[in-house]
């Protein structure tokens, strides 16, 4: 006895459905991935909007500052560009203002040392003069990979802070609130970078600053506290 004809129709419809599903699966997966990226970007954007301070308060007095960007004449080195900005006298606000200006980049985009989509999420100064700069992931993911380019990026931040914010003696760079092993696979970010040749009392230092791993316990605790704050 032959099976009823509706079974053939049902099996045929099932087969067609399976084929359509197989064909549309890659497209669906792309859409899901795209939706996830948009969600992540939105979360990052919301974080920036919450944390990024007012860039410049026009009520602040205008002062001349030096911004260190790539050199036009000698590749692989930095040149100081003098700019006149209304800057706060508070060292934390001032640091945020100069670093945001540094991130905004020079007129000639080829001379920028930091990726255009990177953002400063937070900046703190610890009692020992260590500035803690927390950047968005783009500092790590969008920077051209290499020892030279990563060195220039960090050097531009360090020299700009050294010139414009004398209260910052050392610099610790965090990425999205976390300590990173390297910037983009090369430069060591587990250490602190020496910004000033002087200590808190104004005494000239002979030796470079120790890496973060050998900082005194109270300072390590403070760094950890800052990490905890920025993670939330």
């Amino acid at each position, binding site marked *: 006895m032959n099976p009823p004809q509706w079974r053939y129709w049902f099996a045929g419809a099932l087969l067609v459905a399976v084929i359509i599903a197989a064909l549309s699966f890659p497209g669906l997966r792309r859409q899901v991935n795209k939706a996830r990226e948009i969600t992540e970007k939105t979360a990052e954007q919301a974080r920036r909007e919450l944390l990024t301070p007012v860039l410049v308060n026009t009520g602040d007095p205008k002062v001349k500052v030096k911004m260190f960007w790539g050199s036009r004449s000698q590749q692989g080195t930095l040149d100081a560009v003098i700019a006149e900005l209304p800057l706060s006298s508070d060292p934390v606000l001032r640091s945020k203002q100069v670093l945001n200006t540094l991130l905004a980049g020079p007129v000639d985009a080829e001379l920028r040392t930091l990726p255009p989509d990177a953002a400063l999420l937070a900046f703190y100064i610890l009692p020992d003069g260590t500035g803690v700069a927390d950047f968005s992931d783009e500092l790590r993911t969008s920077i*051209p990979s290499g020892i030279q380019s990563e060195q220039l990026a960090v050097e531009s931040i360090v020299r700009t802070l050294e010139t414009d914010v004398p209260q910052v003696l050392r610099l610790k760079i965090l990425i999205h609130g976390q300590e990173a092993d390297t910037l983009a696979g090369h430069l060591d970010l587990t250490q602190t970078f020496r910004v000033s040749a002087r200590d808190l009392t104004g005494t000239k230092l002979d030796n470079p600053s120790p890496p973060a791993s050998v900082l005194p316990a109270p300072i390590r605790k403070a760094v950890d506290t800052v990490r905890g704050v920025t993670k939330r």
Partner: protein
Amino acid sequence: MFGTLAAAALLSLAIARAASQQSPASSAAPAKVPAPSANASLVSSMQPTGLNVVVLDPAHGGTDPGARGTEGISESNEVLQFAWATKRALEAQGFQVLLTREGNDNPSFDDRSARANAQRGGVFITLHIASTGLSSTARVYVDPDSPAPPNTIGLIRWDRAQVPFLSLSRKLGDLVQQELAKRFKGSPNTLQTAPVRQLRTTAAPAIAVEISSVSVQNRAELENMAPGVAEAIARGVAAFRPLYVVPSNSAPGGSAQP
């Protein structure tokens, strides 16, 4: 706790060294040295010895392609070709050469350093290709100056392993940079310092060589540099051989050299 950790590190280093002395490592299939944890320590009391082994480190690999160029050039692939060419040039000078990777895998920073730290009388050279910089130039980097680590019962911290070798690293770097500058116009005449992560945990004279760049218009332009880079490194290391004496534990910064 610290004593146990130090004893374990001492033991593992001694075993690794003994193994490398009993059966001189075959450069074709080197045995993998387990990487200690970041808090492990190294023994710094070593006897003066000559330069025997060069550990070449082609950077990146595996899921980490490194710098990527417009022509589809990936740093991890290209740097491996440079490493093989350099290995041949060094072997021609009579050195035993070990590679930290021979295929498309990505050992950790500590695994790569451990490869060099287990050798007696070795130098470490990590090879990179940048995504920026003047085309057809090469630069040598060494770790910047760092305060000497506290000398605790002859042990130094794993993450400060490079400190006692900085002076030797600078000598090796100067010699290699001079050779590179002769061959590649536009390269600096002197070495540069940068806190390169890979160098920090290496207990041997260690340099990073960075070539520019993966952004060349024509892949051949980059690949044509390989013989010159290999020859420059081999000549630099050969010139360094008579200067090489492993520092003793009481002489951080390599001050025990002649």
